[in-house]
C-alpha cells in the first residue's frame, strides 16, 4: 500500500496475471453471476463463430480492481471506468498497469486520476480507462 501523497507520473506496481485457464473462466462465471456459455462452453463458443472460449470482459476489469486495491485501500476508490477494446483469449496472460495522470479537486476532495490499461503479451490492449482515488488517506473523524 502506498502511504505518501499521490503525484502525477506515479506508476502503480503492475499486476501480472498467469495464463487464464478454463477453470478460472468457470470460477468467474459462478462468482460474477455471468453464466453466458460463450465463456465456459466450447460448443457455445463454436456456435457463436469463435474458435475457442474467451474471458469475460469483467474478469479483466476485476484484475484492474485488484491492482488498484493492492495500491490504495478500497475506501479511497471513487470511480472506475473502462472501455473493452479487444477480447481476451483463454490462456492469455494479461498485465495491468496504471499511472497517475492528474491530481485535481473534486467534490471538496483532492483526487488523483489514474490511467489504467490491461495488455496481453503480444501487445494487444484489451481494456483501457481511468480510475479516480482520494489522493490522501482519509483524515481522522471524517
Amino acid at each position: 500500500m502506498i502511504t505518501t501523497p499521490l503525484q502525477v507520473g506515479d506508476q502503480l506496481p503492475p499486476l501480472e496475471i498467469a495464463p487464464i485457464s478454463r477453470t478460472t473462466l468457470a470460477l468467474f462465471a459462478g462468482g460474477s453471476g455471468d453464466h453466458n456459455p460463450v465463456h465456459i462452453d466450447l460448443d457455445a463458443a463454436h456456435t457463436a463463430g469463435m474458435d475457442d472460449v474467451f474471458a469475460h470482459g469483467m474478469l479483466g476489469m476485476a484484475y484492474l480492481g485488484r491492482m488498484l486495491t493492492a495500491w490504495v485501500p478500497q475506501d479511497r476508490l471513487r470511480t472506475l471506468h473502462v472501455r473493452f477494446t479487444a477480447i481476451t483469449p483463454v490462456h492469455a496472460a494479461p498485465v495491468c498497469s496504471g499511472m497517475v495522470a492528474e491530481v485535481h479537486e473534486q467534490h471538496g476532495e483532492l483526487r488523483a486520476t489514474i490511467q489504467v490499461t490491461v495488455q496481453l503479451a503480444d501487445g494487444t490492449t484489451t481494456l483501457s480507462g481511468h480510475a479516480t482515488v482520494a489522493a490522501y488517506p482519509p483524515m481522522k473523524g471524517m
Partner: protein
Amino acid sequence: MALSPDVVGTVLPTTALRLERGRLRLFAKAIGLVEPVYVDVAAARAAGHPDLPAPPTFLAALQHEVPRSLGWLEDLGVDPARVLHGEQSFTYHQMAYAGQKLTMTGRISDYAVKKGGDMELLTRHFQVTDTNGAPIAELGDVVVVRHPQVSP
C-alpha cells in the same frame, strides 16, 4: 438495425442480492485475490471493516440476479450472441460488505447508431442501494449490438 431511440427510458428489472461470504470468497478465488482482508473475516475486522468487503467490480453481479440475465436483450428483439460489452463504469459512494442486502435499479439511458448501422450502442445506468435506500454505487455500461453487413 433492430432497435430505435424509443428504447431510451426502458426500465430494467430491479434485482436484489444478499452479499454472502462464500460468494465473495468464490469471486476472490476466481480473480486470484488472496489478500486476507477479502477472504478472512478476522483480518477484515482487524482492518476496520464490519465483514468481508465486496471487491470493486463485484457489484456488477447484481444485474444477473434475474431468471433470464440476458432476457432484457431478448425482450428488445436482440440476439445475445450479437452483443459485446463495450464499456463499464462504477461510481462508489460506500463500500459494500458481506451480510448486506443490496438492490439494483436500472434503465436504458442512451441509444446510438455507429458505423452506418453496423453497430448499435445501448447505454444502461444502474443504482445500487442498501436496505435503507442509501446509495452504495452507480454502475454504467455500454452494450454493443453488432450487425455485420455482408460485403457486396
